[in-house]
């Protein structure tokens, strides 16, 4: 599932701009989709403040709610060597107060207004967000700008919070055999110290090694105004937002920031084949991942083509993997996932779960056959048009969620993609041609960097994740 389809299906709250009747019922569905492609999906406005902060407004008057999302163009991928987990640990410490907001007061104030506040760290970004009743936007902007200027990161809070982060790691990864395996598989393909091969939450030893000084340095270098994108969505007017940004964010002085510097993929995988047995596992899992171009690395045309390829290869019922593996009774599930909207190299990932009684080798051979045939013959025109149609059909549904719009816009801008790309992505996807899909498949699924992994039920003691 692509990032955009994930957003569409995960729609949560409303942030839609009040659009004119967007679809003309007189048009056939295909024509409607084309008509939609000719106008921006979100009608967002963007500008840059004097200190370098980029600001985007995606206005929607549908409900009296506003969402503030502050994205920093730095995530787990920017953790320094030996300090995996730093971006994420800093995200936790940003909730421990700032110059004018005592520790804990931010969340309490938002809760008192009936709002929601949280944050997330991905490989590419760290983002802080609040959803509030629209008249409460100034309050959350004032508080967010205060930690944008000067978080406390109090010394005496570092150790208790480290314990919380270690519990988070145990909960998400160490007590889940599947998560442990996926973590080890990424490290096997990319290397445990490559930015793509390290866990975002960090290796346990490295979480223990992170210091307050590491956090202050990361904040100084990566949280500069020119490395941030503020996205506000909901029932907010441009003039009001400009005034609030001037009041709260503009006073933070510009400072130099460290740009992203992502290493290319390694020449060869650390372990091309990783087989793990785990006594807690009751259901086997096959993974195969390939290093792939993204919209920011390599040929962006290939990135669009790969999104189409992922859908027709493993995007659910009707896809080649589903037909060859699931419908034939070899696998319980079979899927393909590709996210082109990332900083640096992307991953084109295949996964399948064998049905009980199906030998792993048999499933893997069937998967090999699917790939071989696809690379030799290429997809059909019918597969291409169906994939494009299904990926783009629900583009407008993003508007049914207040959080999806700023997430989509902020994550794209924070990796250097233009707003236009977010506004018109269905049109861009429709331009993908059959030769492009065939070529992208051969380039990526051929002999490039890849690894295969098997997680099997077994007697061996579970292995702890850690730098190899």
């Amino acid at each position, binding site marked *: 599932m692509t990032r955009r389809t994930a957003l569409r299906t995960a729609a*949560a709250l409303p942030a839609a701009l009040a659009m004119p009747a*967007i679809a003309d019922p007189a048009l056939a569905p295909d024509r409607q989709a084309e008509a939609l492609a000719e106008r921006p999906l979100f009608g967002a406005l963007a500008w840059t403040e004097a200190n370098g902060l980029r600001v985007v407004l995606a206005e929607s008057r549908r409900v009296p709610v506003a969402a503030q999302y502050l994205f920093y163009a730095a995530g787990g991928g920017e953790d320094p060597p030996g300090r995996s987990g730093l971006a994420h640990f800093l995200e936790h410490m940003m909730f421990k107060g700032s110059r004018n907001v005592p520790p*804990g007061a931010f969340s309490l104030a938002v809760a*008192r207004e*009936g709002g929601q506040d949280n944050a997330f760290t991905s490989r590419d970004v760290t983002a802080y967000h609040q959803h509030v009743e629209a008249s409460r936007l100034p309050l959350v902007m004032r508080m967010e700008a205060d930690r944008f200027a000067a978080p406390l990161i109090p010394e005496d809070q570092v150790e*208790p919070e480290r314990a919380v982060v270690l*519990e988070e790691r*145990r909960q998400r990864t160490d007590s889940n055999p599947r998560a442990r395996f996926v973590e080890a598989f990424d490290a096997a393909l990319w290397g445990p110290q490559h930015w793509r091969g390290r866990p975002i939450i960090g290796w346990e030893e490295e979480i223990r090694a992170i210091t307050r000084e590491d956090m202050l340095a990361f904040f100084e270098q990566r949280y500069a105004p020119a490395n941030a994108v503020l996205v506000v969505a909901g029932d907010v007017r441009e003039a009001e937002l400009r005034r609030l940004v001037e009041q709260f964010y503009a006073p933070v002085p510009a400072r130099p920031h460290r740009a992203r510097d992502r290493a290319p993929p390694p020449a060869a995988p650390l372990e091309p084949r990783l087989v793990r047995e785990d006594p*807690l596992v*009751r259901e086997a899992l096959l993974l195969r991942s390939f290093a792939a171009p993204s919209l920011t690395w390599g040929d962006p045309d290939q990135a669009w083509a790969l999104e189409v390829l992922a859908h027709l290869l493993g995007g659910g019922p009707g896809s080649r993997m589903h037909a060859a593996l699931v419908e034939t009774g070899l696998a319980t599930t079979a899927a393909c996932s590709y996210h082109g909207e990332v900083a640096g190299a992307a991953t084109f990932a295949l996964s399948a779960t064998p049905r009980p009684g199906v030998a792993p080798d048999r499933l893997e051979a069937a998967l090999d056959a699917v790939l071989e045939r696809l690379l030799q013959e290429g997809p059909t025109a019918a597969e291409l048009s169906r994939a494009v149609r299904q990926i783009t059909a629900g583009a407008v549904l993003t508007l049914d969620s207040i959080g999806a719009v700023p997430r989509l816009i902020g994550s794209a801008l924070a990796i250097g993609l233009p707003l236009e790309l977010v506004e018109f992505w269905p049109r861009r996807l429709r331009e993908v041609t059959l030769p492009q899909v065939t070529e992208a498949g051969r380039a990526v699924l051929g002999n490039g960097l890849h690894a295969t992994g098997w997680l099997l039920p077994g007697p061996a003691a579970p292995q702890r994740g850690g730098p190899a």
Partner: protein
Amino acid sequence: MSGRGFTLPIQEVRAAGLTAWLVEDHAIPVVALSWSWRGGAALDPEGQEGTAGMAAALLTEGAGPLGAVAFADALRDAAIGLTFSAGRDSFDGGFRTLADALPEAVRLARLAMAEPRLDEDAVERVRARAMAAARRTLETPRGQAGRAFWAHAFPAHPAGRQSGGTEESLAGVTIPALRAALDRQIHREGLLIGAAGAITPARLAEAMEALFAPLPPGAPPALPPLPPFRPFGQEVIGLASPQSAVVFGQDGLPVRDPEWEAAQVALRVLAGGGFTSRLMQAVRERRGLAYGIGAGLSVLFGHAVIAGSVATENARVAETLAVLREEWALMAANGPSEAELADAVAFLTGSMPLQFSDSRRIADTLVAMRQNGRPLDWLEGRAARLAALTRGRVAAVSARLLRPETLSAVVAGQPVGL
């Protein structure tokens, strides 16, 4: 105060002998419809757990002239999200669609309910998926603890069973049993319907006629009443894991209890979401014992159970449980402070607009209100009812509701010192 002026105009729409609640909003061209019957996993015969869940999944695996792939393509070509699922005590359907595709969504949903194919290969695929999910649940401490909690609390009632079934029960589900489950479940009467988005009452009435008028008359059978929650103390499931998962809880109160909202306030203060609850402060913020802890009212068979969870390093499980019991007892003894009451009321009032902003969620919420027997003006009066709550009333409901001696917990992992 935010949220105090919040209103949600709900219209009642009647068609096909049924009533739907509608929140009409044409701001974006999206329509969501949700419907629900009593039943679901509660109607599965003993030993055939998971039948209703498989039957629900099979409704979108081929219907009428369309095989599974053709049916999926028809949905995805038009970006229609159509789902059916079986809960512990309900069988639920619904879709979200672009307004233009509403006729297609209605056509496919109707086909799914009226003419499900239950093709043998689709049944085997769905069975394999359900069995894999049941096995995967047992791979993690959290999955094991959750399953055991309900089994211990309700040992002789469907509420204590795995609603999705077990590997053993799923293996024995036959096509006639699936047909029988759908025959028990899918009827015209007893349907609760919620709708939201770009649809007029007239269009909704047409959709209801098309979807529900053809269904067989009558209603699904009545459900067995929920027996009292059985306090079971503390159970440990040994599992090789560096962290233990704990699922804890006790009896709650009927959804029609006049002090329902006072109980919501008490639980918000003690164990509600976010960073502000007493448990989150005591367990995460002050002691760094866990990434998160929370509990809430889990409604089943018209009655709420208080259920929550936490996960912590094996060595610190005993300390975490001691803190949990201490906070539980403190709240039972003294209730909230005036400031905590004010904060909780402000949150519950102010958060209302945020809960009504995504069309499928609005439609689901309307159905949930009807399952709980709320009147049409329940939301309208909610802010005033919450504002009228006194510390004394919330303290009284805390004392009546929270019984530390009945607080029961399942611990899965390798806890030290339990």
